[in-house]
């Protein structure tokens, strides 16, 4: 049996294997008795953070807690936004995510095509070496990578976030597997017509690979957007911090102001949540296809 996660990227997931069967004399399926409390428990943390974010600080610091505030204080979001450079946080995160997505799409495509289609000197050895690095946890490379990035003068800059993450082995492997599954005849025909390798990659192979490229883009975007450890190590100035590090800095400066802290937290999660709600199917398919979270 193949790896469980490599379901076809082209096959839609419907997740509806079973009809709603219920025991006789039951007005509803007993599964609701399990799923309703479960959903409540899963949503409660998010709902409660939104409620707290709209309370006054006096109401937030009350026990028993004020479950339904008498008035909604949207100005908490304005206070949170103004107390630390949240505009910079969003911009830095966007730059970090966009640049690493672009870098991975380009460099992984080129390398994956070479490893899938071209027999070149040392290709097998190099490919195995790349796969070996996939097994090494990030903690092993973190200190030397820090020293290398410092040598390059990129400490405390968005560039220092981006450069080490421009091309991941995972992306090369993912794309190579997909390219290998494409029929080679189209490429051979174009080759006879005199098309260059580069033209074949960009005009024939990549257009056929849209689903897997989208998968790589989504996974990489999610990973960069939610990355915390690497920014924590190289960024010290708030203006250069991406969102998750900025949120952690914000936490450090508002330890007991829970309403503001929740406003900042909710605010920071809105873009990703919005994208997820909008493109839920793509997210789920990407995760199921690759089996990777962050």
């Amino acid at each position: 049996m193949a790896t469980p996660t490599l379901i076809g990227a082209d096959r839609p997931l419907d997740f509806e294997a079973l009809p709603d069967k219920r025991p006789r004399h039951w007005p509803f399926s007993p599964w609701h008795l399990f799923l309703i409390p479960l959903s409540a428990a899963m949503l409660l943390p998010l709902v409660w953070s939104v409620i707290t974010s709209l309370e006054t600080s006096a109401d937030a610091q009350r026990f028993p807690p004020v479950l339904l505030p008498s008035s909604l204080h949207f100005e908490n979001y304005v206070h949170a936004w103004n107390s630390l450079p949240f505009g910079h946080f969003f911009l830095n995160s966007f730059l970090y995510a966009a640049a690493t997505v672009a870098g991975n799409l380009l460099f992984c495509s080129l390398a994956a095509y070479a490893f899938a289609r071209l027999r070149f000197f040392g290709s097998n050895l190099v490919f195995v070496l790349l796969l070996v690095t996939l097994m090494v946890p990030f903690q092993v490379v973190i200190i030397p990578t820090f020293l290398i990035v410092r040598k390059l003068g990129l400490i405390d800059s968005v560039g220092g976030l981006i450069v080490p993450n421009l091309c991941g082995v995972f992306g090369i492997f993912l794309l190579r597997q997909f390219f290998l599954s494409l029929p080679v005849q189209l490429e051979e025909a174009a080759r006879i017509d005199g098309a260059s390798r580069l033209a074949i990659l960009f005009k024939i192979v990549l257009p056929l690979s849209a689903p897997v490229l989208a998968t790589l883009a989504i996974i990489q975007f999610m990973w960069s957007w939610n990355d915390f450890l690497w920014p924590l190590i190289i960024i010290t100035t708030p203006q250069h911090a991406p969102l998750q590090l900025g949120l952690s800095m914000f936490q450090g400066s508002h330890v007991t102001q829970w309403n503001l802290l929740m406003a900042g937290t909710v605010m920071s999660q809105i873009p990703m949540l919005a994208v997820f709600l909008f493109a839920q199917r793509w997210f789920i398919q990407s995760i199921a296809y690759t089996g990777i979270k962050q």
Partner: protein
Amino acid sequence: MTLSLAPDSRLRRALGSEHLAGWAFALPAVALIVIFGIVPIVWSAVMSFQANDLVSAPHWVGVANYRALLHDPAFAASVRHTLLYTVIFVPLSVAGAMLVAWALNRKLHGVRFYRLAVFVPVVTSTVATGIIFLWLLDPVFGLVNFFLSKLGIPAQGFLSNPNQALYCIVAMTIWGWLGFDVIIYLAALQGVPHELIEAAEIDGAGKWSSFRSVVLPFLRPATLFLVVWSTISALQLFDEIYVTTRGGPLGSTTVVVFYLYQQAFQFFNGGYAAAIAYVLFLAILVITIIQLKVGGRRIYSNT
């Protein structure tokens, strides 16, 4: 392609052949991975035999770092916390996800809403998760203590209680991970023939045993994958600890990667931290190989 036998044909063949094109295509990626992957892996190994404060010139100390690790009670404690966390987190999250996926894999009123509720934490960042749970579990104002008070249970310290903090981290990370595991199981369930799933749903005695003998074998590859992947992630736990407890209270949640972070970037013991990283790497490698061997054998003997 040409059959020319001119004197320069060898050179021309080499240049025009796939060797040059292959390297031209692979070079940018390979260069980046060598600089930010392979060089650091080797450098880190060298560093683990050095005293290195990340500023002044390092000097060779042999196996002193590794020997010091053996006698470091703080490191031993971090290993204990990490293993305890992993041993609780992995079975609970994987088994829980299997149950939830089984429940969600059917036509039900509101099933789209249920799925959304389970999936949403997957896109919530670890930092946000940490801050939100810090608030939910606040010993004085927290919502969870409010619910407990309704049940007549006295207020708990949760993340500020050394005996409870690690279990709170487990609960928090299960909340964050469940959706991911469920997605993998839902995808795996698509590969099970409908008749078999329905057979396992037939009412009456032996429901569990028919599930176990009919459906479970189909889910073994996904289970193996999730056990391996969750174990690797659990052994590398960091973000949630940094945001919520910073290893406290009384060091009760200091896990290996948090200890490594402190050694490297707070105390500037680069060599010592590199030694910790390699011990972690070896541990992950050994545990993964054992899991794959044991799990792989069961997959092939049962299907």
